[in-house]
């Protein structure tokens, strides 16, 4: 046990949690915006992958990481728009469309990557982001180097949580998003355009998923590989539920899972793997399913989730 504790209280370990948690936080916030507006986006796994591919390619050829980040955001938003076109404008079933978007986007990502870079024995890599220490704050013992000597994208993720909460709970647009997710009929009567509000929320969500993909290829792995997303999108789906569709709780859930994942990596590296590491990776999914069973009575999910809205149908 003491060996376990020794692994936990280290700057490197805290920093690892933050780095594993960052893409999950972006993806989880993205999925949350979409679901709060009443649109489940199962395209997330593919959207992250295609955005990661676009980000990597953009950074590789432009030589600028930020151009890569912008490319990833743009592609994420575009794929969000595609999902919204099918599910919001055309009112098609969300889960089937989401699977379609994931199959399409991941296929396209692999296809284009192979087309651009060919089949190389050593996959091409880029020089990823460097940590940017924040003056004064990074001098705080332990917490400073772990949290305030990070990539700019990490700071963006940390800021994204209060901003997302502010947008969702304190702005008229956020109110519209919650209305169209809870009771689109009432929102429509109140003069809120259900279609455009949902569309915007899904596109915003897609761009956040794009940021998640960008982080993976530009800060975490510095290369695009076929397993670069490997289920992180599905993790985000679980975390949104586990975080009860709330920005703070969702980000907290992302951090919690990042802790579990980092711990699992540490235990494996330290040769302390009595428990198979898969047990840790399975945890967010199992916990979410259990949480869903307990939450079902309190109806915390957006009421109109998965329900297409057609104005003329009553």
């Amino acid at each position, binding site marked *: 046990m003491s060996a376990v504790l020794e692994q936990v209280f280290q700057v490197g370990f805290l920093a690892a949690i933050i780095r594993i948690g960052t893409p999950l936080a972006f993806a989880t916030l993205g999925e949350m915006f979409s679901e709060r507006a009443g649109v489940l986006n199962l395209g997330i796994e593919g959207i992250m992958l295609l955005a990661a591919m676009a980000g990597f390619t953009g950074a590789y050829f432009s030589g600028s990481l930020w151009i890569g980040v912008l490319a990833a955001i743009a592609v994420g938003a575009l794929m969000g728009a595609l999902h919204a076109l099918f599910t919001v404008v055309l009112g098609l079933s969300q889960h089937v469309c989401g699977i379609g978007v*994931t199959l399409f986007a991941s296929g396209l990502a692999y296809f284009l990557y192979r087309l651009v870079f060919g089949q190389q024995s050593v996959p091409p890599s880029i020089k990823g982001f460097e940590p940017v220490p924040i003056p004064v704050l990074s001098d705080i013992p332990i917490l400073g180097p772990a949290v305030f000597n990070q990539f700019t994208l990490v700071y963006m993720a940390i800021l994204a949580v209060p901003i997302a909460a502010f947008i969702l709970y304190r702005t008229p647009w956020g109110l519209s998003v919650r209305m169209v997710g809870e009771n689109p009929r009432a929102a429509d009567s109140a003069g809120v355009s259900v279609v455009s509000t949902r569309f915007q929320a899904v596109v915003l969500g897609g761009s956040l998923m794009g940021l998640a993909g960008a982080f993976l290829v530009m800060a975490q792995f510095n290369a695009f590989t076929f397993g670069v997303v490997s*289920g992180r999108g599905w993790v985000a789906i679980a975390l949104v539920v586990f975080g009860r569709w709330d920005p703070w709780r969702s980000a907290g859930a992302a951090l919690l899972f990042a802790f579990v994942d980092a711990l699992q990596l540490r235990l494996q590296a330290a040769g302390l793997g009595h428990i198979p590491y*898969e047990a840790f990776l399975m945890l967010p999914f199992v916990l979410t399913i259990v949480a869903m069973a307990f939450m079902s009575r309190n109806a915390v999910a957006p009421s109109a989730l998965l329900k297409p809205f057609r104005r003329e149908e009553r």
Partner: protein
Amino acid sequence: MLRLEARQKTPAWLNLTLPLVAIAVTLILCSGLILMAGAGVLDAYGVMFKASLGDSYAITETLVRAAPMIFTGLAVTLAFRAKFWNIGAEGQLLAGAMASCFVGAIPMPGPLAMLLMAVAGAAAGAAVALIPALLRVRLKVDDVVSSLLLNSVVFYILMALIEGPWKDPFSGYPISPPIEDSANLPVLIEGTRLHLGVLVAVLAAPLVWLLMARTVLGFRIRVTGENPEAARYGGIDVQRVIVVAALLSGALAGLAGVGEVGGVHFQVMSDISPGYGYSGIVIAMLARLNPLGVVPVAIFLAAVMTGAEAMSRATGVPAFLSDVIQGTALLAMLVALLFTAYRVRRSA
């Protein structure tokens, strides 16, 4: 101005032509990617066709690939008919593969082994599908998300097994030891990989059709899916029907895994399914949730997958085109389905 108007009834000719239209649109859209890769469109599709359906050996290879997709396609069809949104065929397939591999490694007479493998695989798939079904009928938990998340749970169980207690000591890779030779499904045509499981898959489709169209249970499943209120009013125990549909659906997906273990790989590895469970959703939708339609659609998608590798070697177009085709076909079909519910009218 054009507007959409709800249809009262879908004309029969639309049901048949829509999937064809969706596939045609898909192939046209994807030809853009072939051109981007600097190959001729007809060349690429030609190679794809020849390598998958051009000669008898190629056809058997395509059928071998189609078998698990027929099973998952049927699994999704049956579940979606009851409006039980089973996105978990992938995990149910993996569960079936694990269970059948476990049974197949026990020495016993071949036919008995095969039978028990099928039973165990179907039971394992059904057990996985039972979880989201019970959560839904007992606790009103959304089945889309719970069945999807279970895919990851089952996958990690598989990984833990083949990297841990099940790891083949004679192989450096995380794969299970092979099943007994006597448990290998018999090959139907000498010199090919066409195994008994393919025949079972093709025969399963008319059986599922019979079940849906001609039995009381099938009737209950259809009514429950189409109008749960009416079903309840008519004395159908809707919750029970959903659970039964989930069990049958999971069992079918589990059988997909049995066929892969018994007839193709003879052991379990992490990539035993390249997403056959998700392909099942594509197939079910293209087949318009008709069990008989599942077979040709599965064979089509299997042909695309088999042919894509040859196309890649011959023309340099990345084989991942087959994944793009699957995704595009699903999206195209969903849009096409709009025309069954609506028609475009010129409004005054």
